[in-house]
């Protein structure tokens, strides 16, 4: 189930936005965190991660900035915009509702 692309598509935005909630991160950082936190179950290839980031940026939910740090190649850091924060709230809520709904229907909560 973890590898189901349909599932990934619906939740990918929520995952990325959640990871950016506390601090700005670059693309590799985001992908590594998803990989680690999912215990290796979830993995985004660059070919899907970056278009997703650009789409979110175009929506105005996140904003990317090139940051140069000493003795490092410059990296593009993405951070959440106020609108992104609202979107995240909405997505979290609807995710909770969705999970609750699934649970109620399947009776998993009581099981």
């Amino acid at each position, binding site marked *: 189930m973890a590898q189901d692309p349909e599932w990934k598509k619906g939740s990918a935005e929520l995952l990325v936005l959640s990871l950016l909630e506390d601090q700005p991160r670059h693309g590799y950082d985001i992908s590594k965190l998803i990989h680690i936190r999912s215990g290796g179950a979830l993995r985004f290839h660059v*070919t899907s991660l970056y278009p997703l980031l650009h789409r979110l940026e175009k929506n105005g939910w996140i904003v990317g900035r090139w940051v140069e740090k000493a003795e490092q*190649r410059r990296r593009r850091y993405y951070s959440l915009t106020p609108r992104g924060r609202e979107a995240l709230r909405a997505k979290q809520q609807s995710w909770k509702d969705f999970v609750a709904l699934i649970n109620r229907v399947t009776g998993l909560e009581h099981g």
Partner: protein
Amino acid sequence: MVDWRQVVRTRLADLRLTPSTESELTEELAQHLEDLERDLQSGGATRAEAYRETLSELDDIYELRAGVDRSQCMTKHEAVPVGDATSRSFFDDLQRDLRYAGRSMRTNPVFALIVVATLGLGIGANTTVFTLLNTLILSPMPVSAPSELVAVASTGTAQPNTLMPLSYPNFTDYQNQNSVFSGLAGYARMRALTWQTRAASQPLLTEFVTGNYFPTLGVGAATGRTFGPEADAPGDPQAVAVMNYGTWQARFGGAADVVGQQLHLNNVVVTVIGVAPQGFIGVNGLVGPDLWLPFAMVERLLPSEMRTAASDRSKPLLQGVGRIKAGVTIAQARANVSALAATLAREYPDANEGETVTVRPIADVLFGGGSKMVRFAGVVLAMVAGVVLLIACSNVANLLLARSAARQQEMAVRVALGASRARLVRQLLTESVCLGLLGGSVGLLLAYFGMQLLAGSLPATGTFTTSRLDGTVLLFALLISVATGFVFGTIPALSVSRAGVSGALKEARTAGRSARKVTVANSLLVGQVALSFLLLVTAALFLRSIQQAYDIDPGFKADHLVVFITNPGQAGYEDPQTMAFYQDVAERVARLPEVESAAWASNMPLFARPVGGLQVEGRPRQSPTDSSITIVNTVSRGYFQTSGVVIEKGREFAELDRPTSLPVAIVNEKLAQDYWPGDDALGKRVRVPGEQEMREIIGVARTANYSAWGEPPQRCVYLPLEQNHLPAMTLYVRTKGDPAQMVSAVERAISAAGPQVLVSGIRTGQQVIDGSLFQARIGVALLSVFGLLALGLASIGLYGILAYTVSQRQREIGLRMALGASHPNVLRMIVKEGMSLVAIGVVIGFAAALLAGRLLSRMLYGVGAADPVSVAGAALVLGGVALLACYLPARWATRVDPLVALRQG
């Protein structure tokens, strides 16, 4: 370490991202992959495993394509069809070329606009001229099979080019006895008849024609009917008329009940039986009559003038128009008619001796004696318009050349990818033909407005020929547009496609235009300057010619003069009544304040027609058509004083010259000189055509202009009105002040003397001269417009090419200024470059102008082809404008900041 950038770039190439998206994405992905590979290796993977694992990230590149926003991708169509070596089908290629042309116009709309406007002016000028030529010369008569029509006319031995009418009896003999025409019709010259309406009398121009006139020409009626051979029936002819379509519209408001309407013409009631088709104005080039009347009616309508019309073989009245039988050539027709003429000369030697009759193409008579001149002027006009178009073409070619510098690289790439040169040329030509067609549409629009303007400047009588923007004109515009596209497109197309691949790829971005291209551009520019100089000189020559023409002494005094045509005969006056009317009017007008004198003459100034048949006592009898043609002018007492014609010898007509006294005449110096060189003409005797008695010469008048302004001297005989009563005369009034102010007072005096008498043709002396020089003035106006158009186009071309050169040489100019060249130095350098091209152009243009001036010499009056004033004037105008066109880019060059220019380079 793997260069992930390189890897990513290769994978992304397929996605056709915009350059900025591609470079950012490459950097981001490469960074990501580098991090991943490093982490994998530090996590214990081997280098190969890490590489494989990292590379697999890029496996599904199409996911990336699906995710990439559309705005981040390049447009679907290639800006340039790559390579394009293999053509699939002609129409495929054409469609692609058209799309390409459309795109290249959209990307550079200002360029396209300038090109289309320039071409529009050039094509518009040509279409306008073609419309004129088409109307006047190429297809002037809206009749069936006009090429079968010929003119049949009498020619004198001395002036074989002057076509004269035939007498009615002779005409009917030709009509009945020829074997070459399926129909031979006759028409008399137009005459103004008095149309009596309840309000006032008005003139109507009429043409008396034989009954078979309409059937021969193959012209039906727009409404009602035309008359046929039955109208020739002797006895009491039908009083019928066919109306000009234009007259019907303009003077009768297109009234539906015009057929059957009765008109009172010269006291005769004439019934309109039909209207001729729209556009038909008879065998006339420019102006037609208001009405066509059967020739059989001529005696009823013009009793005093035409009493002998039907029987007198020596009274020339009818021009013949014949429809040649199928298979008969003009030469055969001429031979047949000449043989008949010889027979008639034998049968009626008194009237016909020495008369030869010829057959000519109908075009030779459409403009009377001026037909050749009209055609010559047409050719000149067409050439001038052609020159304007040539300038426009070379201008556009130069613009395309300048732009092609930027495309050199593009073309080189495409050649490198396998496009054939022919394919490239074809593509570029498609583009220029598209531009040509757009220019052609603008040109048609301009031509339409031009023709409206011309039509608006003609009097609204409805009888003038109307220009038509018909299918022929549209076809002409289409052809000329396509041809233009080819002409201006060929040079740049060849030059661009000639691009050596490697050379162009290396240098194109930086080097600007090659030496070859500058040479081509400069040659085009020199050509433009030469052509516009040619047109300016020609225009100046004509302008000077007109100035000179106005300075001619016509032999009469045109200032303070005003003339009025009256026709008491047409109002039904009998002879004594007419003479009393003349007497009464002269006295009433002379009494007006501001009038110095008034007198009568049968001829309008500059409208006299010479007649043949003057007989000089003691010389053998001349045939009516030989060189003895003379102006005959019947004048009242006081004419010479009023008109300003000087009596050099002898005396004027006086009270003692009565109808019963000795018949007398006054001749002009030319006549006296021709017949009695070195002898005194006074006391000699002459007999004027149509008279029985000899007249004694009592005076010699100074030779004046009689038929045209600045004409070669003509012989003239003056007769006293008292001894030669005429039903129509022209009143000459000499005023103290402005003659135009006196017109209404004189008109009132005339209508007080004869309320029914029609007054027409009111003109001041100045208007008479202007009218006589009308063609020349139109010519000058058109030439000036075209000359200025050419100058404007050439200046834009000069400006454009210099501005381009300056922009290309910014670096060099910057360097010069950094090395100490002052602003004036740079200014001089650029201006000198431009002006030296102009100088070469002027020299070439001058040589061409000398040649053209010689060709045009017969249209020029009193100026030579190398008239220094015209040449200097044209050079001054051209030089001034060219200097400005050079100065603007030059000043721009001096504004170049050396530092900026050098850094840019």
